[in-house]
């Protein structure tokens, strides 16, 4: 899923730009563990792999990627906790 512009406002933002270790996906998972079901968390990542990794993880973990956008220099990925 790729969109040019995201209009949805997330409930929480995880800014993982520049994250080295353990990395953006782990930062996202940590946030999703802490929030209530239905919460939309935006992950900001400058690692292009995040766009596929988050989708793969969300599919297996039963969460939903609601939007992915290239923001120019980084990616914005919205995940809804189900």
């Amino acid at each position, binding site marked *: 899923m790729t969109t040019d512009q995201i209009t949805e406002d997330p409930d*929480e933002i995880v*800014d*993982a*730009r*520049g*994250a*080295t*270790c*353990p*990395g953006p*996906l*782990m*930062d996202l*998972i*940590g*946030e999703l*563990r*802490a929030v209530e079901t239905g919460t939309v968390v935006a992950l900001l990542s400058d690692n292009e*792999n995040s766009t596929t*990794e988050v989708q*793969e*993880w969300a599919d*297996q*973990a*039963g969460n939903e990627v609601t939007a992915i956008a290239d923001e120019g220099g980084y990616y914005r990925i919205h995940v809804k906790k189900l």
Partner: protein
Amino acid sequence: MTEHIAIVGGGTGGTVLANNLAEKLGAEIDAGDVEITLFNDGPDHVYKPVWLYVAFGQREPADGRRPLREVVDDRVDIRQDYVFNVDHDKKELELVDAIEPVAYDKLVVATGSQLDPEQVPGLVDGGHHFYGEDGAQALRDELLAMDGGHIVLSVVGTPHMCPAAPLEFVFMLDDWLRERGRRDAFELTYTYPIMRVHGNEHIAEWAHPRLEARDIAIETMFNAEAVDPDAKTITAMEGTDVEYDLLVAIPPHTGSDLIEEAGLGDGGWVDVDKHTLEATGFEDIYAIGDAAQTGVPKAGSAAHYQANVVAQRLTSEVRGQPATAVYGGKTVCFIETGMDDATFVEFDYERPPSPSEPTRAMHWSKLAYNESYWLTARGLL
């Protein structure tokens, strides 16, 4: 007028910073122009990497604990109290045991991480860990009492201190059992929350074949959501159950309540500029180490390098000069790959880690560093 620099937290970051500032600003302190106070809620400085070795009977908890007064420069005031709030408008700290708040001119938050295993039902009763003195000793006793069975290392919490430690533990455990001629009696499993064995893809690529070569079973995409201490099972939100005889978990972590209370960030982590380490939206407040959300590991080396940067920046600010020092994300980690071998990674915001072939020399380097840590904390190394 005296400029008061307050540091909250006497771990690696806070201690290195206090000593570094005392060295840089010695003349100003002696002249009464600068005062430095280090606030800590206990009397001791604790070196946490020792705990991994406690679990294997190679170190004692006392090896990682010394009175803070012994490792901090005499020009720094140490105040043992719990800071529970920051009034950033009035620039005051509120303390549990003090009636009057304490004014500051510059504040550095270095409050570290705390364990929060209660986040996962059953984990407190069903799991062991090596992320604390008591936990590491209980784990050591449990390991020594086992004749065989299934030991599961599960990375439950993220973020957590020292992202390499779970791998180190299973590599060391495998070797420890082999050295004792007991490996055949044990099954080892390593679980990790995402689709590879470590969050950083370079470390994951390096570690995966080494886990397989040691016959350590790998369970990825495993986010533990409950532990049943009676049935001895750990269940992931992805629907997988794993049975265990001994569960060694990396518990969920949280930051300090102070950070939430003061509105400095969510989850106990301070939102900072990743280069200047200034708290976003607040004047004259910095955060370093685990407490700072920088995207680098919650590791002592990162705290140490960040402390050096903030010491330079504060020194410049106190002298009325522009603060130019910036943090580039530098982190250094030794990674034990057994009881006698280790590797080493160095990375930053721009350069990823690249683990090399493990060597005995690197293992001894790590042990030598652990011994010399006390000089590091005092700013002598």
